[in-house]
């Protein structure tokens, strides 16, 4: 699975994207966030306040209950501020 980070999540984690081998225990976007946060360091910082994090699954906005599977593209980012 491909995981993308934008804005200050990207800065804290120190990269914009990475390939992740999805563990069987991770079935939702929220579980993926928790699993990434458990890596500590910048990941823990990025996901420290999960209320400030939004997600997209295959380029569509989803909430953290959305199911994920291998081959999906998941993006994490702050609330958008364009316009």
């Amino acid at each position, binding site marked *: 699975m491909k995981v993308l980070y934008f*804005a200050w999540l990207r800065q804290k984690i120190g990269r914009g994207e990475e390939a992740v081998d999805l563990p069987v225990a991770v079935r939702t976007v929220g579980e993926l966030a928790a699993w990434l946060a458990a890596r500590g360091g910048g990941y823990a910082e990025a996901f420290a306040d999960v209320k400030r994090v939004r997600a997209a699954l295959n380029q569509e906005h989803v909430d953290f209950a959305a199911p994920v599977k291998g081959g999906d593209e998941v993006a994490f980012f702050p609330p958008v501020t*364009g316009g």
Partner: protein
Amino acid sequence: MTVRVQHEDFEPGVEIARLQREDAGAIVSFVGVVRGESHGEKLVSMTLEHFPGMTERELERIAKEARSCWSLQGVSVVHRVGNLKPGERIVLVVTAAAHRRAAFEAAEFLMDYLKTRAPFWKRELRASGEHWVEARGSDDAAAARWKRD
């Protein structure tokens, strides 16, 4: 229907003229401009990051939604990314319709949705350093008023 994400500037007059037709009596445009102040500090510049691919798809979804809610002859959305200085144009929305009310409402809808759904993030460079712009609750409220129950 035109949706573009680009580094370079755009010309509002050119984009408006593109939608000028005999069956569209009303053309409304919105131009967003980088303001020179933020949080009481002078703004040096602003950098817009986005999610290539998803941005275009999301803008197209929002534009299609506008076309399904109002009878429109044309819709254009142009959004810039990269580094911008105060006073520079940042976003353009143009709507064309037979009557003015539809054109006004659709343009306002597009801006409200663009601000809450299109994956852009602003980073400001101010005297005190770099700051990511925080999303505003007022933008969510503005978008929510278009929701049908």
